[in-house]
């Protein structure tokens, strides 16, 4: 099924671990029993103060949170997306839950063995487990593990810091690099941006902070495994990545979550800032629990991801493979502020069963000679529904703005739906925008052709689907591509027959 040529230096364990992921049922439906320190249920100023105090935050951070909270109280949950779900009861959620804090973790040996066990079940490659366990000389993928909202392990700090790269939890950044945080936090996604981003600003528990100094090419791919673990805990990560002038960084985000009865809310905010000549590649594989066969349970994934190509000739590339969650609602976007800046969005969204996804991107052209490219591949099966929603806009000063958009949808079966809403706005006449869209049905004849050659219906589907998404898969870093290809196949299991 796969024809991916594994590069010699690519971890064989990664491939092996991915193979072991294969299974009929969602395998990550387990709960690790780690003692949590949990905030009181519901949301109030007191809870926010509790979170802030837990994290020993300075006064300005608490003020920032409270400001967001006051703003949030005046806002209403938006309803324009093509998704339907019971509204979260915000006063019945827990907003903070941390694995019992250890004073300081110099050595990763101290990490709870159950946590390591969890990583194993998740199929996190052995090498990265070794990294987590603090084995020297393990693979050069730095992992900042966000486990139940708090970073418990950050690795390769040394090698990165030699390069001048800062890669740490955002809580730590608040303590150690307050000036950088103050300068950039909320500068891409303002506190008051939208209902969920504002909520996140008030209660974010943890997340990742990355700073690449001028002229530095980050010596390794940075990778974070997110995982939602405690029951009834809203997950509010906050990620801030800054690439200073002429810097380069590639960041990988991968997600899985344990099986739950309750719906879990996930409302992260990701802010990327690229200064003059800088480049950021941000790749996501999202595989949160999509709910059972009747559509119960599953994660609500309401994320705000935005990049500011602030500098001249800066470049940001979003690549996402979205296979999980009951409801997905996200639009990784680029503000092309700097002249000649470039924004890219490559997306694969797979929905099966009762999943719903409303996803896409926004490319806001502000600077001259800016260009953007959007390739979106949507696959809908079962009784799922998905929507591509995109905005490409050129402002009056964005002379010679260029965009190419291609949106392809593949339908499997006749009970699913795919919708495309491309919004295009050009406020100057020199802008040139192209849009192509196709919708195809995975045909009985195509399947039969494959089966006549000896492929089972399932592997024929996997092959056809992988062919469909190939163009985007090729944009992923190799480790992710192998994993993602498997995930796509797993997500569609049982969709033909």
């Amino acid at each position, binding site marked *: *099924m796969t*024809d991916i040529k594994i590069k010699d230096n690519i971890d064989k364990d990664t491939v092996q671990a991915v193979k072991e992921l294969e299974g009929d049922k969602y395998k990550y439906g387990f709960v690790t029993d780690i003692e949590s320190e949990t905030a009181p249920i519901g949301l109030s100023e007191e809870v926010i103060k509790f979170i802030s105090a837990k994290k020993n935050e300075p006064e300005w951070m608490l003020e920032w949170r409270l400001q967001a909270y006051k703003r949030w109280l005046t806002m209403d949950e938006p309803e324009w997306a093509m998704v339907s779900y019971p509204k979260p009861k915000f006063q019945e959620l827990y907003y903070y839950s941390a694995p019992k804090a250890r004073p300081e973790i110099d050595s990763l040996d101290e990490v709870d063995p159950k946590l390591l066990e969890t990583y194993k079940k998740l199929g996190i490659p052995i090498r990265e487990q070794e990294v987590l366990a603090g084995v020297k000389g393990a693979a050069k993928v730095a992992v900042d593990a966000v486990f139940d909202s708090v970073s418990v392990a950050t690795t390769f700090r040394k090698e990165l810091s030699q390069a001048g790269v800062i890669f740490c939890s955002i809580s730590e950044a608040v303590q150690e690099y307050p000036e950088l945080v103050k300068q950039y936090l909320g500068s891409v996604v303002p506190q008051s941006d939208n209902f969920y981003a504002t909520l996140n600003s008030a209660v974010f528990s943890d997340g990742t902070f990355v700073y690449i100094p001028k002229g530095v090419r980050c010596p390794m791919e940075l990778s974070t495994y997110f995982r939602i673990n405690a029951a009834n805990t809203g997950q509010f990560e906050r990620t801030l990545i800054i690439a200073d002038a002429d810097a380069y960084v590639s960041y990988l985000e991968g997600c899985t979550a344990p099986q739950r009865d309750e719906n879990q809310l996930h409302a992260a905010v990701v802010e990327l800032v690229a200064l003059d000549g800088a480049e950021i590649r941000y790749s996501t594989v999202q595989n949160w629990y999509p709910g059972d066969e009747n559509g119960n349970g599953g994660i609500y994934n309401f994320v705000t991801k935005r990049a500011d190509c602030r500098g001249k000739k800066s470049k940001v590339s979003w690549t996402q493979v979205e296979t999980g969650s009951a409801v997905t609602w996200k639009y990784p976007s680029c503000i092309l502020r700097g002249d000649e800046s470039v924004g890219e969005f490559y997306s694969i969204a797979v929905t099966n069963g009762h999943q719903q996804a409303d996803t896409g991107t926004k490319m806001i052209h502000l600077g001259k000679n800016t260009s953007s490219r959007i390739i979106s591949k949507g696959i809908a099966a079962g009784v799922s529904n998905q929507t591509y929603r995109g905005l490409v806009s050129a402002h009056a000063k964005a002379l010679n703005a260029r965009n190419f958009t291609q949106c392809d949808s593949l339908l499997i079966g006749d009970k699913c739906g795919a919708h495309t809403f491309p919004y295009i706005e050009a406020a100057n006449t020199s802008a040139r925008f192209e849009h192509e869209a196709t919708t195809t049905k995975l*045909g*009985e*004849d*195509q399947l*039969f*052709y*494959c*089966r*006549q*050659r*000896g*492929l*089972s*219906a399932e*592997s024929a589907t996997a*092959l*056809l689907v*992988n*062919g*469909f*998404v*190939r*163009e985007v898969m090729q944009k992923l870093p190799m480790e992710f591509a192998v994993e993602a290809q498997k995930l796509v196949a797993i997500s569609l299991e049982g969709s033909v027959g």
Partner: protein
Amino acid sequence: MLKIKDLKVEIDGKQITNGLSLDVPAGEVHAIMGPNGAGKSTLSNALTGHPSYHVTGGTAELNGKNLLALEPEERAGEGLFLSFQYPLEIPGVPTLTFLRTALNEQRKYRGEAELSVPQFMKAAKEAAKRLKIEDEMLKRPLNVGFSGGEKKRMEIFQMAMLEPKFMILDETDSGLDIDALRIVSDGVNYMRAPNRGMLVITHYQRLLDYIKPDKVHVLVDGKIVDTGGPELALELEKNGYDKYEALVS
């Protein structure tokens, strides 16, 4: 080898095949000729298990195995191959990837070991050379942007790689110019063997100049109405099917 008895097939509730019987022993090549709408493609689709074709009666066996009880991929695993009249495009899937996956699934079905990549590549190179298929074409997504003739050559290439026991060629000659016809026929003849059987479905006698059949059957109105040697094809070319059609109507 292939034994069909009193086969009845419906599509969309309409009976197309009306009690067809046919026996192709190992080592023989049989041709089926008939006018449009006689049920030629219905026969090949029903034998290979296309889900839109419903067998309502009769039997079909390959080497004693009841084909009708098997899934399409299992029939392929048993060695049944269809060269499609209209080969489908498989976007994004390189030809060799497709073929290697298919071959290994078939081998798995038969309990054989997977073919290693070097073994597979060697076989592919040889077969491609025989069929005058450029290496570059094998790297392209299967059939995408191929001409009609290239698609047909690619079917025969797949046939060579999968080494089936029984082959059905459904109007393989349509859309081929004379050079392509020769290349394809050579590829088919190369596959002839004492343990292989073949059914060649065609409109025209022309193909049978290149692929010499042991027997020729005339299919009209879903039934075999006449059987003879290669000379029957020549006669049909001259006189058409009128006399048979008058018979059945």
